[in-house]
């Protein structure tokens, strides 16, 4: 790794249906919150990174033009990075590399989405090319198939997987109710989850994330600047990102290589050998409860094929060995372009003791993660309280 990089400020909007603000206003809300948290002004920023989902989501092409003023980016260099659902992690990695390269000291990274101004599923249908794969379009279809592939591959009894996914949903909704910024703030029982209406078998309504409006901003700084500006920076300890082949049948989605290798690279950089024991918090990208089970395995947090057992044993529930998604996760909040960055912001808040009502006592090392594409991309960033 080059120069050490620290997070000196984070900002999020209140997520949900935000008819009260325009899209640029929404972006500005997160950016202003980050400046307030870091205690610096836009003049201190050397560069800006922006990312969101494809333009079709809100009908604006290259919307960083539109948000130039809201991001306080006028007169500054701005890069745009985008990798579908994993955009939030990709823009963070761009910001870290920018500072680490020595070409900037302080970089503002912004991700956003205003999904109530467009049709997210219609956009996601167009990720699949129009000739061979279009009939499998839309996120629930693809991810339900993946859930079935995983159950089949490891011979996991359907009832067991169902129970484990329901526990994840219950835990996340409880956590979301505890997070003032979350979109969905309602608690459910295991029975309610298991009896919710079917979306695409086996996925039911309460196994699925909402469609949210929201933005997130994170400010990265070089070691020198971070120490000067911030009493408790969250240090970037490791990063990994991998993508897989495009056609869904070309790679195993039960043993998800992109997630396995992305997390391995991040753990290696961070010097982590036993992630479940060493990590204090994991902010996992879980738009579908079943997917979190696969992530727990592929991110190396439990043995392959065993996530359901671990979840039923309470290993990843509040008070368990490793707290997952104390923010409520993607199941409670999903403004897609911001979602992966929210995971990192939440991880940074945890290791710096700024997580308020959702603080995990004494958290020192946290993982953040995002997934995107046609079940293709996985990005991981690990932050810690110590350099």
């Amino acid at each position: 790794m080059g120069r050490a990089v620290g997070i000196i400020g984070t900002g999020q909007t209140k997520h949900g249906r935000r008819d009260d603000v325009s899209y640029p206003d929404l972006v500005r809300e997160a950016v202003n919150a980050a400046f307030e948290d870091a205690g610096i002004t836009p003049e201190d920023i050397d560069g800006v990174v922006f990312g969101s989902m494809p333009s079709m989501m809100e009908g604006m092409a290259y919307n960083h033009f539109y948000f130039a003023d809201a991001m306080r980016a006028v007169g500054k260099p701005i890069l745009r990075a985008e990798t579908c659902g994993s955009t939030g992690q990709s823009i963070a990695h761009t910001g870290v590399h920018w500072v680490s390269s020595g070409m900037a000291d302080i970089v503002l990274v912004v991700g956003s989405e205003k999904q109530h101004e467009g049709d997210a599923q219609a956009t996601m249908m167009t990720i699949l090319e129009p000739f061979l794969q279009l009939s499998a379009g839309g996120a629930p279809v693809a991810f339900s198939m993946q859930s079935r592939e995983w159950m089949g591959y490891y011979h996991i009894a359907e009832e067991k997987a169902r129970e484990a996914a329901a526990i994840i949903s219950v835990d996340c909704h409880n956590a979301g109710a505890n997070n003032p910024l979350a979109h969905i703030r309602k608690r459910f029982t295991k029975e309610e989850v298991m009896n919710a209406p079917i979306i695409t078998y086996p996925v039911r309504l309460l196994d699925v994330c909402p469609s949210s409006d929201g933005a997130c901003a994170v400010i990265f700084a070089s070691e020198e600047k971070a120490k000067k500006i911030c009493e408790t920076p969250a240090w970037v300890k490791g990063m990994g990102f991998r993508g897989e082949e495009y056609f869904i049948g070309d790679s195993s989605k039960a043993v998800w290589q992109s997630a396995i290798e992305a997390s391995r690279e991040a753990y290696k950089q961070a010097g982590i050998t036993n992630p479940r024991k060493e990590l204090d918090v994991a902010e996992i990208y879980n738009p579908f409860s079943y997917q979190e089970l696969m992530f727990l395995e592929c991110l190396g947090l439990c043995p392959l094929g065993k996530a359901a057992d671990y979840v039923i044993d309470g290993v990843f529930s509040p008070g368990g060995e490793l707290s997952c998604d104390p923010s409520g996760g993607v199941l409670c909040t999903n403004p897609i372009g911001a979602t992966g960055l929210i995971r990192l912001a939440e991880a940074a808040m945890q290791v710096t003791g700024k997580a308020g009502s959702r603080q995990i006592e004494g958290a020192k090392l946290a993982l953040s993660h995002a997934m995107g594409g046609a079940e293709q991309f996985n990005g991981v960033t690990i932050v810690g309280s110590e350099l």
Partner: protein
Amino acid sequence: MKKVGIVEVTQSPGAESSLSLMEFTYKTVKELLDKVGMRRDEVDTYVMASSDVLHSGMSCANSFDIDATGGFLKPFSRTEGDAITAFVYGCMRIMSGNYDTALIVGLIKGSENADNDTITSCFADPFYSRPTGINETTAAAMQMRLYLQRYGITEEQCAKVVVKNLGNALFNPYTHIKKRVSVEDVLGSERICDPLKAMECAPKSDGVCAMLLASEEKAKELTDKPVWFKGWGASMDTFYLGDRDLLDTPLKSAAASAYKMAGISNPRKAIDMAEICEPYAFQELLWCEQLGLCGQGEGGKLIDSGATQMNGSLPVNPSGGVLAMNPYVSRGLYRVAEAALQIKGKAGEHQIDKKVNTALAHATYGFCGQWQGVVILGS
């Protein structure tokens, strides 16, 4: 700061391609890997540039493109916007010390897209600007009108840019438009958005450009003539055209940052050649001013003087520029590639006569150049 070298570049043929987007991309990437003698898994990291709106009707472009770029299961990222940002991000990844080699790919198949301006009209906000019918071309026409009026630049001077660049393109096998034209031809072409004439506007092209970058040590190992990344700068203007002076653009500050990083105090002396993004002919003159390659309002005199001709003192767009080849997303990476080829002395028939030590590559997109980026390369 660590040094980064360009090892090798490849470009797709200029003509519209009948290949699928995936095959079209793969061919240029494979050619690059073969040229440097590497396998795809030997490259440390991949950064690609493609656009979700200029991508054959498919969103999340990198989902589809990853196979053909060779970046699957390798450290990977993608910039959205002009591909010059993928080049810069690739440099950052190497400079951070995390990786020694980076493969950069910019890709677009314009022939499978709607007209560029159907898409650029979506740059405008849907409430105030878009209902006026604004797009990149209508915005550029307003900028040109202002340029002619404020500085007395003539339409003939603007037309000369087309004559020069299309003339240069005749010697570049990787360009789309192959046509020798005269000033009269340009002035006589249809006025599509007064004062812009049809021949003063760039076409819509298919183009993949691939580039291998390496750390100093690795670059020296892989090639006997690395081209070094010396500096870059970028800047963003405010959104609404009415809030801007269209002749005083963020290119000035982008250039200032790039020159500072490259240690250039007098760009007119230091720069040996420039590849400038001119989707509209007059913009080459205006951008030369903003880059400090001539005085303010002197873009017309610059083209009259012949300095920017292939055999002039400061050749601009010896490749033929964007007027001859406009793969919208990858065109900025093409500028870097062409500048690198000139420094390497490998530009073939459009190699300029004098020795090139320092070259400038420029990219822009957005209404009247809302985003501007400058890269300086050196021998």
